[in-house]
């Protein structure tokens, strides 16, 4: 059983990322989109937490591009058809609304 968790809020001043990481299962994946991609701001605490967490990390490419952020080598940038595929590969999708 695995869940794709989706985050779209900025990790700064919001606790969704921290709460999500606490209950992420080993087989689960995490997709960052929208302002959640600010977590990949190099040198920031969320960046370091994600790097150390070793989770299956995906990020929506258009949001990185918009924010002039790079994909670290421990994450995979995807487009919308990749998003659709990811949602099928996992048993369910949990969007942190």
């Amino acid at each position, binding site marked *: 059983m695995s869940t794709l968790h989706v985050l779209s809020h900025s990790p700064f001043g919001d606790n969704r990322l921290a709460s999500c990481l606490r*209950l992420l299962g080993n087989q689960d994946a995490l997709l960052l989109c929208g302002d959640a991609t600010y977590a990949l701001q190099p040198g920031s605490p969320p960046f370091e937490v994600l790097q150390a967490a070793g989770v299956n990390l995906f990020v929506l490419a258009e949001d990185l591009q918009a924010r002039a952020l790079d994909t670290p080598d421990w994450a995979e940038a995807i487009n919308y058809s990749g998003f659709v595929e990811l949602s099928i590969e996992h*048993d*369910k999708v*949990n969007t942190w*609304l």
Partner: protein
Amino acid sequence: MAKSLLLISRQAPWSGPGAREALDIVLAGGAFDLPIGLLFLDDGVFQLTSGQNAKAVQQKDLSANLQALPMFGVEDLFLCAASAAERGIATDALALGEVKVLTAPDIAALIDRYDQVITL
């Protein structure tokens, strides 16, 4: 067999319509005899504190709806231990009885057990 749904309620009772609208999804599901679970996480745990007075801020009292859950066949109620601890809430003094207190690994396992999940 009906698919089961876990509602994860993360909003405080009067932070906006979130808490009430999450509960409406649960009650509707219960009314249709669907297998529904409800987990209180993060600020959602504030929905369960005792002695609340919604009228003081001219809001609806959610606790009546929460008490009604078993009547709608919704008995699988859960609370995140860490969320309660972080907010200074004692899990033995909640306004709702029969809420199972879960650790983070329990919650990961809980999510796995349900067919679908909505985190509101």
